[in-house]
């Protein structure tokens, strides 16, 4: 402690050398600070819990139900919820709870697979476009602008109809092909701002190659907004898949997905509302969780919003 020549009995000053809370000499970075922030955020905790639940449900549906969703008996056709069938049964007499649980797999995997590959395309082309600039940037940006003008749902309807077969991978492929433009623009603008910073010049002056500068300096500093947006995109894609299935251009029976269940339910909404209600709730809660997570991440990763 510094010895200041102030009479000590006058005041007892607060000790000035208290370390800032939560630091305690541990290294802090953008991500560890964000984690620190997130852990105390209700919106993050809630959305993380829901997402975790849905992911576990998608991977291990057996944990939640021992009933085979494809083992149906027509005797039980369209029963309302009961102690035996918690969510009731559908037209074929299948246990609706089991089908809703198994539906998570399709919905969550489509959301994750599509977002992963769309982000991969967006990050690769976006950072190339932003970092290299010039001719390459012009070509990539103009193509993106054209792609950007095509609504995802419309592209899904047109191309899935044209493709004929509507399996899991076909739906994924169409959504990937039309799902990347927004994220590419985000990545490009983020790279454009990072590229101007001194440490990029410094890295080059110290002999780093273009590849190294992009992977070690540009990407780690510029990818944050894309991660946030990708989280939200997972929810959006799940909703889009449900919409396409509802419009009969997405997955087809006997696939099990929430959108498909809602689609089948549409003729009996008034007579048997539970057919719409349960997959609808699962769908909206999952989409909501991903969007909430995206918001929580954005707040935590943007120091300006703290």
């Amino acid at each position, binding site marked *: 402690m510094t010895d200041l020549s102030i009479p000590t009995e006058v005041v007892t000053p607060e000790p000035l050398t208290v370390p800032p809370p939560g630091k305690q000499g541990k*290294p802090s970075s953008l991500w560890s600070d964000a984690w620190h922030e997130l852990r105390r955020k209700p919106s993050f905790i809630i959305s993380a819990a829901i997402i975790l639940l849905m992911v576990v449900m998608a991977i291990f549906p057996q944990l939640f139900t021992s009933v085979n969703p494809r083992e149906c008996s027509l005797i039980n056709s369209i029963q309302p919820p009961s102690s035996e069938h918690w969510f009731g049964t559908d037209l074929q007499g299948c246990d609706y709870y089991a089908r809703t649980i198994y539906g998570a797999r399709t919905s969550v995997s489509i959301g994750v697979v599509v977002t992963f590959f769309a982000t991969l395309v967006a990050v690769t082309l976006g950072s190339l476009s932003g970092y290299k600039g010039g001719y390459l940037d012009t070509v990539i940006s103009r193509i993106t602008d054209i792609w950007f003008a095509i609504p995802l749902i419309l592209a899904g309807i047109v191309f899935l109809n044209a493709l004929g077969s509507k399996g899991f991978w076909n739906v994924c492929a169409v959504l990937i092909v039309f799902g990347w433009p927004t994220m590419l623009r985000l990545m490009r603008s983020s790279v454009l701002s990072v590229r101007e910073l*001194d440490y990029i*010049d*410094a890295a*080059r*002056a110290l*002999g780093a190659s273009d590849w190294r500068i992009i992977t070690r*300096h540009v990407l*780690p*500093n510029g990818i944050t907004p894309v991660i946030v947006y990708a989280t939200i995109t997972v929810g959006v894609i799940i909703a889009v898949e449900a919409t396409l299935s509802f419009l009969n251009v997405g997955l087809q029976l006997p696939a099990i997905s929430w959108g498909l269940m809602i689609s089948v339910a549409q003729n009996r909404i008034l007579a048997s509302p539970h057919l719409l209600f349960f997959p609808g709730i699962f769908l909206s809660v999952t989409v909501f969780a991903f969007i909430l997570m995206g918001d929580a991440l954005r707040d935590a990763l943007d120091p300006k919003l703290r």
Partner: protein
Amino acid sequence: MTKVTPLDTAFDPHAADTGVLLEVRDLEVEFRMRAGTVKAANKVSYQVDKGETLAIVGESGSGKTVSAQAIMGIIDSPPGFITGGEILFRGKDLLKMEEKERRQIRGDRVSMIFQDALTALNPVFTVGWQISEMFQKHRGMSKSEGYKRAVELMNLVKIPSAAERVNAYPHEFSGGMRQRVMIAMAIALDPDVLIADEPTTALDVTVQAQIMDLLADLQQQTGMGLILITHDLGVVAEVADKVSVMYAAEIAETADIRELYQHPYHPYTEGLMRSLVRPDHKGGRLSPIKGSPPDLLHIPSGCPFHPRCDYVQDICRTDDPPLREIVEGRTSACHFAEVFSND
């Protein structure tokens, strides 16, 4: 396959000990922008030898950083273009080299320190990671070896408790410590030439002195050539051997530090001297140079300094004086350098 000369033979420090280490010859750099073409370096020439400190002095916007960026190959292109001249490192023109060969020199043989170490260090990696990366990439060392060397370097640049701080992030250091980290990275591979672009401008005065002392120490230990870019003539007086004064993208005068201070050969240098606070200054006002430096888009005709010059003649308004040797080892770009120097 591209032919890359092995570093060992091409840059053997003992092979070319007598020659000039780095020489910039008639360098011309243009920035082509919508508003017009800016000549940011106009026939700039200077050289630095082993163990020598060359200071490049000038006001903001005088083009002093541009030549350093050209040496390092970090001019943003477009809009920047090197339109002429040579940059010879141990006699080989850097501008004619293949990118691959040049990258082996960057950071390794010629290195650079930036003005603001806060923005020149990557915020998402620890300083240890960033220093050890130099060893891993250029010397093929393992990660643990690299970290060990990083700690040694941090000790060398006098960062207290280096062993603990090696895992800290740039924002956890003070400005002066960050600049030391930057210096550690720049000297990691024992470069022959170190360019320091206003290394102390972002720091407060006491820290400035420490950083300059550190650079001077390191230079003595390693015998590297140092190019110090600054607008602070006080800093220059303490450490430099030679000074090149830049004005409006041109070298106005180059001289040995003592001679320059005693007897400037260019009216601009004289103006700079007059505007300095000196210990022997007894009261009264300082006399700054009248007017302000020209916009590089609209450089005055003839001698670029003529609108502000106290000694202006008709010829100055029409003819741009070339940089010429006035006496042995001293150059000046003034029509009347000889007359002026006898005043």
